[in-house]
């Protein structure tokens, strides 16, 4: 990881290594500030509550993809599968069993985690292309299923009439979405902290080792398959929770949650914000959603054109270079730099 210690003695080497590993896991004042500001946003912009809620949900969803794509290097074009599964399981659970939102989220997380665990076996083998196809295929299969099982999901009309009880039996979901905004944000914060602990742990570092050089990871005794299975499961259940929150705050589930655009947009967001960096997903979600609402207001139909152009420019200028302009060095350090060499 760090080659700077090669000249000094062993203990010093270990010391600096430890310090550099711990450096990333300390909570900084800027982070604290960020979250405080985020939570004050609904008060500052009262008319944008639903938008804020949506951004928080998207950020959580992006966080989930970041674990898979940014930290473990698995290219997935079908992450909407878990998101959509979460949306439908939360909506159906609320409709037929229990309207309590938090209980609903737990169910969501478990169900999506299970789905992710099953799907994780499909991404262990093969090349990037195979993984791309398999992840995409899973999302498409779920889309077909949701479309065909209209007695349960409402098919292409969407699932309507989902009533959600008050959060913690106290805070009702109101029409303006004040509760929704805070609820989504709290859930996002919770999972964000969880992910933060996760990627700062030794286990989190094994993810990056696998991403950067899978062969070497195997050689030094990292149980590659096991780690990948667990990270995929965790990411799937986080994506499911994001979907669950969406279903609960909007009281609606429709087929477009499985759509290819959603997976592609998500990937784009993450890339705009920076992969392999937890705040990248948040930054990307904020930028993307604001851009989307601004540009769609001007030319609703041709939003795709601008986003396409943005993608092409982004890739050609170089993701890493853009990241370098905005990223404070201390947050990121040497460890996050994505290696361009695979296998």
């Amino acid at each position: 990881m760090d080659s700077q210690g090669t000249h000094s003695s062993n203990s010093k080497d270990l010391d600096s290594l430890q310090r550099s590993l711990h450096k990333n896991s300390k909570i900084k004042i800027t982070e604290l500030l960020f979250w405080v500001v985020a939570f004050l946003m609904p008060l500052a912009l009262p008319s944008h509550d639903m938008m804020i809620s949506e951004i928080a949900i998207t950020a959580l969803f992006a966080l989930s993809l970041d674990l898979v794509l940014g930290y473990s290097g698995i290219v997935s074009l079908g992450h909407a599968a878990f998101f959509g599964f979460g949306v439908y399981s939360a909506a159906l659970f609320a409709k037929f069993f229990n309207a309590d939102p938090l209980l609903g989220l737990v169910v969501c997380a478990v169900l999506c985690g299970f789905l992710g665990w099953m799907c994780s076996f499909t991404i262990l083998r093969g090349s990037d292309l195979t993984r791309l196809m398999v992840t995409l295929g899973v999302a498409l299969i779920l889309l077909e299923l949701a479309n065909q099982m209209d007695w349960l999901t409402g098919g292409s009309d969407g699932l309507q009439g989902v009533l959600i009880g008050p959060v913690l039996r106290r805070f009702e979901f109101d029409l303006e979405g004040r509760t929704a905004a805070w609820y989504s944000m709290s859930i996002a914060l919770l999972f964000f902290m969880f992910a933060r602990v996760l990627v700062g742990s030794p286990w989190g570092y094994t993810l990056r080792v696998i991403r950067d050089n899978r062969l070497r990871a195997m050689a030094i005794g990292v149980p590659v398959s096991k780690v990948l299975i667990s990270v995929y499961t965790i990411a799937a259940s986080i994506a499911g929770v994001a979907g669950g929150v969406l279903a609960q705050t909007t009281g609606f589930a429709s087929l477009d949650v499985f759509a290819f655009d959603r997976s592609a947009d998500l990937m784009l967001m993450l890339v705009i914000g920076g992969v392999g960096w937890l705040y990248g997903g948040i930054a990307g979600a904020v930028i993307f959603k604001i851009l989307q609402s601004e540009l769609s207001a001007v030319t609703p139909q041709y939003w795709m054109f601008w986003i396409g152009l943005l993608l092409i420019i982004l890739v050609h200028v170089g993701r890493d270079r853009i990241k370098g302009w905005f990223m404070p060095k201390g947050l990121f350090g040497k460890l996050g730099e994505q290696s361009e060499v695979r296998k």
Partner: protein
Amino acid sequence: MLTILFDGVAYGMLLFVLAVGLAVTLGLMNFINLAHGAFAMLGGYCTVLLMQRLDVPFLLCLPIAFLVSAILGSILERTLYRPLYNRPHLDQVLFSIGLAFMSVAGADYLMGSGQQNIQLPLWLKGRTELGEDPWTLGMGHYRLLIILICAVLTVVLQSTLTKTRFGSQLRASVDDPVVASGLGINVNKVFLLTFAVGSGLAGLGGALGAEVLSIDPIFPLKYMIYFLIVVSVGGTSSITGPLLAALLLGIADVAGKYYVPKLGGFIVYSLMIMILLWRPQGLFSRGSK
């Protein structure tokens, strides 16, 4: 039943022509190009415009569609694709999704969001029937033409790749660009030509399929998954692999839609995932790379 088989084969052949360019860029040049469908759409729109506005005969439209797509392909290869050959797959995916998105919005802007249909010439509209009742083989002349053209193309492509000097230059450039250029092969030119032919073939496929596939602005995204299935299932090391995969997909899709319309794409996608799990490098590849 034979008719369904026949339609499936025609559809599969069409998919093959559409996807073979992708098989080349993806398999030989190792570039994940999700914007491949955009070239096919271009070919389709060319045909539609030429036939509707200028009354150009259908058969003449095919080479024109090929040329237009090939020229655009080579321009894009020079300017946008080439710098990305050695980048990680993620960059290539992002870039080509961006290109596909732009083509969708652009087509929407220029041509409107409706579906475009073409009026086939009379001699293509007929239908020949052979055989007795349970085994009737109804062959639409249009589909017969598709099969014919595709069969010829396959033979030409396969022999170009294996028998000609250009084929060996291409294979050499792919295996090791550095050594190939050291031997005096102009690697950039070889790639440029290959890419142009690949996109041209997509355009040709789009033109041929304008009637069956119905050209509309979301074409690149709608059929992207099919192209990718053909290439990933067929394996990327030969021409015959994608051909067989395309035929399999075409027959499975047509038969699936005929016999169990409710399950639709479900069968195709499940089949793809199972095949990829069983053989991640594709069904017909010669071992792993």
